């Protein structure tokens, strides 16, 4: 034990003699934590479309407006031909081409199938899938809103009180004219029927008469509906001119008043993402990866440096036990790693205001366990190599795998089986899980016992393997 104390003293003298390493570690930690988090905040951004509108009618314009008002799409460019639209796509100025064929409005109002083409840049499958889904969603909404609300234009939002009043008034007026016309019509019909059936008409009341005729002639209802619609259109465009807001008017078609249409609404409750930018998920993970890389690299270079410099020979001839020697190499790495973690936690708190939902001591405890396992892994590499270059290459090989297959970048569940096995024996995976649970979900230590158990297994395996692998006499 006393021997370990002396060895540690030696190690710390070495560390503080060459202050550049400490300075480099400090700089790397702070610079990376300054520039990485803004890039790692994953938002779903608006999707720019290049629009090729062959139809150029009010219906296509209203559809485009509906599309852009959904916050998922914006129009990057208008193009005249598909080729022009494609050029915009190829210059990365847009991520999709929307082509509205000629006769779109005619098809819509004629209630025949109106095709519409969307071509998405699908190099990134995730965002492409998302875009296509958003498009379908907007389309579905557009279809239902097209005739939803009496006299409403799709995508045309009447916000002000006066406009609502004007609309109600217009509706009332339309209703009035309709009634007036209806009564006039029924009167003319009445007159006609009186003329035709004058003998009977004289004996019955006019009210009953009109009722009878209406019942006898049900096909006139649709015709009347169409007439009414035309009138409605006129009133609406008048209203639009008054309001000075609507620049296009939509030919309205009758709404299928099917009261039995059954809808299922979804209310999504987003949790654990207070700022909408995934910071609580990404930033602790970045910190975890940083601690992992630094801990492993530092310890991997430890013993191998002595080997390269030849000072290991002195160790070999001295009466130092090999576990004491290894521990004297491991403990400084633990301390530096914890210092890096502390610095990182301070930066994360000061810069981004991110504090764990659970207590700091839980974080320190789990981080310490993780560091012990990673440092053990680094020393294992160190014992297996003869010079620093080899250690660097091995370290790089394993660290890139550890970092990329840790579940932060792509979900582990969607990896093929063999990659899931790699992820299962990856300490960083468990550490990142725990960091996220602590930071975002407010979990307590009892929730993360499986992960802590896994880390303990790694500690035992890596460290005992490292001690076993290190033979003094060589």
């Amino acid at each position, binding site marked *: 034990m006393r021997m370990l104390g002396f060895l540690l003293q030696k190690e710390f003298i070495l560390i503080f003699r060459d202050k550049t390493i400490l300075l480099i570690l400090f700089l790397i930690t702070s610079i990376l934590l300054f520039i990485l988090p803004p*890039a790692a905040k994953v938002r*779903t951004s608006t999707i720019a479309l290049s629009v090729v509108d062959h139809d150029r009618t009010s219906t296509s314009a209203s559809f485009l407006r509906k599309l852009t008002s959904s916050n998922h799409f914006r129009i990057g460019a208008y193009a005249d031909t598909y080729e022009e639209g494609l050029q915009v796509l190829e210059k990365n100025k847009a991520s999709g081409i929307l082509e509205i064929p000629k006769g779109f409005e005619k098809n819509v109002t004629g209630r025949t199938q109106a095709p519409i083409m969307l071509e998405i840049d699908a190099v990134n499958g995730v965002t492409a899938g998302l875009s296509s889904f958003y498009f379908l969603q907007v389309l579905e909404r557009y279809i239902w809103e097209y005739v939803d609300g009496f006299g409403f234009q799709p995508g045309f939002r009447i916000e002000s009180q006066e406009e609502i009043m004007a609309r109600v008034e217009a509706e009332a007026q339309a209703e009035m004219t309709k009634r007036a016309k209806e009564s006039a019509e029924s009167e003319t019909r009445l007159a006609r029927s009186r003329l035709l059936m004058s003998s009977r008409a004289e004996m019955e009341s006019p009210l009953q008469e009109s009722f009878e005729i209406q019942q006898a002639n049900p096909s006139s209802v649709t015709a009347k509906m169409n007439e009414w619609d035309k009138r409605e259109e006129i009133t609406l465009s008048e209203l639009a001119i008054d309001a000075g807001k609507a620049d296009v008017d939509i030919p309205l078609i009758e709404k299928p008043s099917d009261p039995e249409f059954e809808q299922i609404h979804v209310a999504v409750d987003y949790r654990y*993402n207070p700022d909408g930018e995934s910071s609580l998920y990404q930033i602790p993970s970045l910190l975890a990866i*940083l601690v992992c890389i630094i801990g492993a690299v530092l310890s991997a*270079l430890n013993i191998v440096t002595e080997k390269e410099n030849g000072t290991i020979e002195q160790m070999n001839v001295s009466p130092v036990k090999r576990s004491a020697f290894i521990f004297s190499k491991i403990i400084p790495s633990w301390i530096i790693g914890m210092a890096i973690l502390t610095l990182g936690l301070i930066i994360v708190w000061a810069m981004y205001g991110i504090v764990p939902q659970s207590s700091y001591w839980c974080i320190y405890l789990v981080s310490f366990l993780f560091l012990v396992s990673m440092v053990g892994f680094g020393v294992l590499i160190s014992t297996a190599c003869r010079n620093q270059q080899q250690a660097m290459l091995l370290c790089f090989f394993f660290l890139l795998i550890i970092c990329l297959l840790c579940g932060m*970048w792509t979900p582990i*569940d969607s990896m093929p089986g063999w990659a899931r096995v790699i992820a299962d024996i990856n300490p960083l995976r468990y550490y990142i899980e725990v960091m996220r649970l602590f930071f975002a979900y407010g979990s307590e230590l009892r929730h*993360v016992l499986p992960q802590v158990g896994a880390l303990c297994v790694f500690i035992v395996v890596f460290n005992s393997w490292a001690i076993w692998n290190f033979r003094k006499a060589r």
Partner: protein
Amino acid sequence: MKIRTFIDQFFAFTRKEFYHILRDRKTLLVLVVLPISQLLIFGFALNSSLTEMPTAVLDMSNDRMSRQIVAEIDASSTFKVVERVSSMDEVDELFKRGNLSQVFVFMPGFEKEIKRTGVGNVQVIMDASLQINASTLESYILATLLNYQRKINAGRELPIQIVPEIKMRYNPRLDSAFHFVPGVIGIVLMLVCSMMASLAIVKEKESGTMEVLLVSPVRPPVIVLAKLVPYLLVGMINIVVILLISVTVLKVPITGNIFLLFFIGIVFTLSSLALGIMVSVLTKTQRSAIIISIAGLMLPAITLSGFIFPLDSLSLGMKVIVHLMPVTLFISAARNIMIKGLGMDAVYPELFGLLAITIVLIVISIKCFKNRLS
């Protein structure tokens, strides 16, 4: 005369560097095998599609419709109903253990409500800690429910019929590899090249052979450039092998001009080597060079390069920083050529950017090297 000596020195020195590299056959082998194995691992393993997301159901209604919806959700490959809970407390507990992605909540009388008012409400509590996954999952949920809605409303009339025809350009099967493989190529090439080069000069400093160079009449530009050449050759071999593998094994096509891609790859390799050389010139020990080239480069290369996270939601300042990294430019160009099949006019900004960065890095290395001479 002066140029003549420069060229002579350059060739002599390059030959020396080749001896260095060829003598250490093991390392050379590692330098070729390592990028290949990593490309294979990541090319197959990285897949951003979401499958079997753990889902819980809190069904307080338990009627025909709610059961049908749950069955519908469970049947999709995206969701997997792992738990049926009976209270919100259990839900919290599951979230805190980290093994739950979303909960579906059906209020009592779900079906009755639909029959009565025509509208039923489903509540979904979602772990949104990673926004992009949450959005994707939400879209799947909505799609499933819309499908179900269409099913129960089959035969009812639609107001208008707009038939969307959606084409996935460049990647019709939405293959994740199309997105990741150019990225993996960029990241692995960059890290391997800059690591190799980062030891080139500092090793001589540490082993003391630098003294010999300093007293010789060889000038700094010759030393720096000659160090680059053999590594550039290794890098070129790597590019060829990597591209072969991505086409034959990973089934990612090269739709564009392969020579253009190769050329950009060489320029990119050169810029990564220049970055490594700069690290090597600026550091005093191998240890600090290694720490910088692994701890300082790995995370930014993954995070800032557009390899995984799309770059278009970044702020303008961040965009500028991000595009100062050679790997960002290369990945963007590689995607344009490999996947989109675009030509020179689409990638010349990236190409000129890479050239400019390379020249700046080499000039910095030579200047700093000179300082150490005096």
